[in-house]
């Protein structure tokens, strides 16, 4: 099944945040969303999560409009990792990850499936050893992983992550990228907002590039990660190379005046 968004536009206080944005998230694939600050990436994700209603256009999963889905059904299908990883109370890590099961849970307590999903999500994000810790006493990177575990615990079919690598160390950045990739491999449709172009190259199947609310490039990774498109999107000159192991590397070199 695909999640398609067709011509979605959103105007906030006279500013056109999204302008006829069209694309498709496919299950089994990772779509990376790129663009300069203020290009509309986060707004696009919150529209896809059903948190914002675009002024026009339609977002659908299969042939169902996501804004017509029941709230809990939508919450079970679509997991959103917001940009700011807010944690407001000093709760146990396990309690925090369990919140991801909320749309699945019955009124009274959790089922075996819930517990299993929580354990699996914590193992997958290298959080199992943090289980008994308090969420606010963790480092920023540990909090980032715990919040990702919260999403994974919900086992969403569609996973939308807004800059999930912020404040992670390089090893855990790679872990999270690989984890997102693996989610796609096991059947989820994944959309990720990233700023690091080499990271984008590492996990993207498809790339959608936004500039001032408009899609300026959309397609398979190799067709989009080109010097011309990136110069247009960010106003920088990039060097595209290959690591000895064959991984694509995209490095900004200088600003184009």
């Amino acid at each position: 099944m695909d999640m398609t968004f067709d011509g979605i536009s959103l105007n906030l206080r006279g500013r056109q945040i999204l302008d006829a944005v069209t694309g498709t998230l496919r299950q089994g694939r990772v779509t990376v969303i790129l663009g300069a600050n203020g290009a509309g990436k986060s707004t696009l994700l919150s529209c896809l999560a059903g948190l914002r209603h675009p002024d026009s256009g339609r977002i659908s999963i299969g042939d169902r409009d996501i804004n017509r889905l029941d709230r809990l059904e939508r919450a079970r299908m679509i997991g959103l990792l917001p940009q700011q990883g807010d944690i407001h109370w000093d709760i146990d890590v396990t309690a925090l990850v369990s919140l991801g099961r909320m749309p699945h849970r019955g009124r009274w307590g959790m089922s075996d499936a819930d517990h299993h999903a929580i354990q699996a999500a914590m193992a997958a994000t290298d959080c199992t050893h943090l289980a008994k810790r308090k969420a606010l006493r963790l480092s920023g990177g540990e909090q980032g992983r715990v919040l990702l575990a919260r999403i994974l615990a919900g086992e969403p079919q569609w996973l939308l992550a807004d800059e999930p690598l912020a404040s992670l160390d390089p090893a855990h950045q790679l872990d999270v990228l690989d984890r997102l990739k693996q989610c796609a491999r096991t059947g989820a449709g994944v959309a990720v907002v990233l700023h690091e172009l080499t990271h984008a190259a590492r996990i993207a199947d498809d790339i959608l590039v936004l500039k001032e609310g408009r899609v300026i490039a959309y397609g398979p990774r190799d067709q989009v990660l080109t010097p011309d498109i990136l110069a247009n999107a960010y106003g920088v000159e990039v060097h595209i190379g290959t690591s000895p192991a064959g991984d694509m590397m995209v490095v900004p070199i200088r600003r184009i005046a």
Partner: protein
Amino acid sequence: MTQLRLNLLLLGALLAAMLVSLLSGKVWVPPGDWLRGDLASLIILELRLPRTILAAAIGAALGMSGAVMQGYLRNPLADPGLFGVSGSAALGAVSSLYFGYAISALLLPLFALAGAAIGMSLLAMLAGRSGSLILFTLAGMILASISGSLTSLLISLAPTPFAASEIVTWLLGALTDRSWDDVRLALPVMAAGMIALAFTARSLDALTLGEAAARSLGVDVRRLQWLVVLGVGLTVGASVAAAGIIGFVGLIVPHLVRPLAGHRPSAVLLPSALAGALLLTLADSLVRIVPSASELRLGIAMSLLGAPFFLALLFRMRRELA
């Protein structure tokens, strides 16, 4: 400490405190005489028992609504008075005094409830349908400020100094001379409010992750806002109707039980209700025991207890920041 043990412990302490409350007062009535049917047992059954029940119920209502407010606003310093519901209930009550409440003893609590209801409706109308937290808080502060200034206006316009002093005394909050009539009026309203508050529990947990994440988890923020307005309005409105303004319970109690309950907002609700009941029952027993010419007002006693609490909080925060 597990949740169950914490709640059982608080419940046991509350029952003990209610017993103490029944024993406190100018006249000593041993428990063996409580059901004898003479004058002394009337003191227990008709004067102290309704008062004890009201103290516990008001404490529970304020403690729980404070816990919900703090969870909803994600602010450990939020207080049920913040949204102006207690202010508008007080305004209703004060206007009944102003128009001469001698007509019926039930006039004042009914006016207070009406004031709370009007306050709640205004709050819901002002905040609109977006479910936005900032709009909601702003609307509440406007309401609190308007009702506060109108109350002051009524005091300054009071026809006689006697009426003015009666208003001021009432505003200080007390449970003196409450009867079963007050219990019958306030208790069902508080119970309804606490049921509404209990339905916020799960959404409050989800709000730990912020509004966007909570909504993506299926929380209906508009429904949540309605439940908060309704629950806080009914509990606080009925508390003010029964006892005037009693501050600090809703602020202190969730604070104190939060670390014991593991910080999860939903886990804080029941212990806050129990601990609020415990605190107010003890405080109301205390004001009856303390030797003084006229009985110390409960509202003043709570404020006196509240200040050192904040001092302790301040010192702790200073240590953590240093």
